[in-house]
């Protein structure tokens, strides 16, 4: 239905620049207002379990090894070995060369394997290399691909290039789900975030994702607010749902709950599901587990009672 819009660079540009603008002060005030919601008792317990199920447990380091990835994958399946009622995370997120290891460990546990591809995190490589990177990860067993957009092309206004890149990577993904990373810390303005969101949704992205985690600021509440508004409006226009994944910098249960409140009040309950909202995080999980234990036992225990990976 967007064929006319993506016909040329200028028609695409007209569409993206015709989206309603974002008032920075108002947007930040709204996000801050939602962050004052007080989530207690049963609501908190619900939110913690949901947040655990939404975590893409991530390791994206130069020092990653197969051993590290195996440990991470084990943790994703059984985050709290002491409590079998604790749900598994949504996925583990690794570099493409670690996909096979993650897949092997996870087996048919239902935990997805997400791989960052397309010359993550900078995205600075030739198109065929990005596509090869994607296919490689899918062949190794990734069922989710987290791609980065070409921020250089976006910032210089070559929106059609970005659109086509996303569409091609999607094709290379085959059956794997595609998450499109904007690196909002580099796009800088909320108007840009809104435009990037529409661009990625029109190009067929299953998820839109804030950041790689390698650039500051990574995920913020106002940026996620803009993206949630975009997926909400997109469904109203097309009937299609797109997921949202804030990533980077979300470290505490308190933070995670603020995001879930925002999902609940901006998009509604349909998005309160790991299929439609994820947290890209590494340290968040242990804080969620600690708070979960506190909710069930009434006591805080120390970090040594939770596994490191």
């Amino acid at each position, binding site marked *: 239905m967007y064929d006319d819009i993506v016909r040329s660079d200028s028609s695409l540009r007209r569409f993206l620049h015709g989206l309603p603008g974002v008032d920075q*002060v108002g947007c930040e005030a709204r996000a801050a207002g939602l962050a004052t919601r007080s989530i207690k008792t049963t609501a908190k317990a619900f939110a913690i379990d949901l947040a655990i199920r939404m975590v893409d447990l991530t390791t994206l380091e130069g020092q990653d090894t197969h051993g590290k990835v195996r440990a991470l994958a084990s943790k994703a399946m059984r985050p709290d070995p002491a409590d079998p009622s604790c749900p598994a995370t949504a996925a583990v997120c690794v570099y493409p060369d670690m996909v096979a290891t993650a897949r092997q460990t996870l087996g048919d546990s239902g935990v997805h394997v997400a791989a960052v591809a397309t010359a993550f995190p900078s995205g600075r490589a030739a198109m065929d290399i990005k596509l090869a990177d994607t296919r490689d990860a899918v062949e190794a067993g990734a069922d989710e691909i987290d791609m980065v957009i070409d921020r250089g092309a976006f910032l210089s206004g070559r929106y059609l290039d970005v659109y086509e890149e996303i569409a091609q990577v999607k094709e290379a993904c085959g059956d794997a789900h595609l998450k499109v990373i904007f690196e909002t810390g580099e796009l800088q303005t909320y108007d840009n975030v809104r435009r990037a969101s529409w661009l990625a949704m029109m190009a067929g992205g299953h998820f839109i994702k804030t950041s790689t985690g390698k650039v500051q600021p990574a995920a913020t509440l106002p940026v996620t607010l803009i993206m949630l508004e975009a997926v909400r409006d997109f469904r109203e226009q097309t009937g299609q749902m797109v997921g949202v994944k804030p990533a980077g910098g979300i470290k505490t249960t308190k933070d995670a709950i603020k995001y879930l409140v925002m999902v609940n009040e901006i998009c509604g309950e349909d998005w309160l599901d790991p299929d439609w909202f994820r947290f890209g995080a590494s340290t968040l999980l242990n804080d969620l587990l600690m708070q979960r234990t506190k909710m069930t036992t009434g006591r805080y225990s120390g970090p040594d009672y939770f596994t490191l990976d």
Partner: protein
Amino acid sequence: MTSPFEYAPAPESRAVVDIKPSYGLFVNGEFVDGRGTSFKTVNPATEEVLAEVAEANEADVDEAVKAARRAYTRVWSRMSGAERAKYLYRIARIIQERGRELAVLESIDNGKPIKESRDVDVPIVAAHFFYYAGWADKLKYAGFGDTPLGVAGQVIPWNFPLLMLAWKIAPALACGNTVVLKPAETTPLTALLFAEICQQADLPPGVVNIVTGAGDTGRAIVSHPDVDKVAFTGSTEVGKAIARAVAGTEKKVTLELGGKAANIVFDDAPLDQAVEGIVNGIFFNQGHVCCAGSRLLVQESVADEVMSRLKRRMATLRVGDPLDKNTDVGAINSAEQLAKIRELSEIGEAEGAERWSAPCELPANGYWFAPTVFTGVTQAHRIAREEIFGPVLSVLTFRTPSEAVEKANNTPFGLSAGVWTDKGSRILSMANKLRAGVVWANTFNKFDPTSPFGGYKESGYGREGGRHGLEAYLKGADD
């Protein structure tokens, strides 16, 4: 509709406040009995009687004015500005220290949600005292002289009990005046707690006097011959009566009255933020705001989109227990006000406007009104002309900027207006043409002690807040 993510109740504790069974008047630094017939103040969210409050009759008011006069001549007007500032700073700090107590008490007595009393009212109250404390020793540089007027008689409304008290008392005291203040009869408790704060701050007796009561008490203050200055915030009707009562006397008057503000949304506006601004403009404080954006003027080309976004947003407003930290819209302040809101809403329907209310469950007891919007409203409808002073929005459309200006100005009021557009030049041009004391651009209901506030036409005269706010409490060259 039940969401799986149902927020559990998160009530703020009432334990921080200590409501006494009965309250007297605060005159000359002490609590004394009133000679009138005492009245009850109720919690509008539950209809629970909170306390018995003394009513000041003419003789009580006379004593309060005498105490204020004594304090003025013997102590306060002789004190240096720097010394007066110390008291004001002390009061401001105590307000911050006792902020939670003040916020909870305000929500209990007024019905406003705790998140507003905690995050808006009380912080701005403290900021007002800090701000005017800073002026007390710099009056010479404000440009209005540095001679106080004497005794100020001040009558305030029930919508922002403590904040209106701060707007009145802080500049008056900073300029060297003493005051006799009457809080509204439905919301006297925070003013009486403020009286305790004055004691705690060792404010000299008689500098601040709080007399409680209804219309008769207010009349006694306004018409008292030894009052030099009358400051009133409230309805246009009472404002007119006050203007008549003081006509021909030496009394200086400032009036801050009603409004029917236009909130104007152009087609290039940041729509999501504009919707927030519309919601904040009319549902903040249950719409009990004189500068509320009660008339939405939306450009026809985006009217449908704005309305569907607005209704979706309104459906997420949480109406209920004012003390719950997640409540967005609290209780209507009184049965009387609720009846007025209902009456005008029924008139709106009878006149053919289309009514839509947010789907929400209202508590069984107390005074409640669901956030409501009327579409298909024209300038000829009463709900487009009269102040409803409740959570009721009237939506009108316009085609061109000049039509927006015409419609916005076509009202006997002129307190505030809002303009939503991405175009800076249009903001400036609209602000020049709108006859309203405050024009907000891409925001609404923002208050700051440094910014003057006041109206055109039937919205009153005089300015409160900022440097301008000092003028009302100083003797100018022509006085």
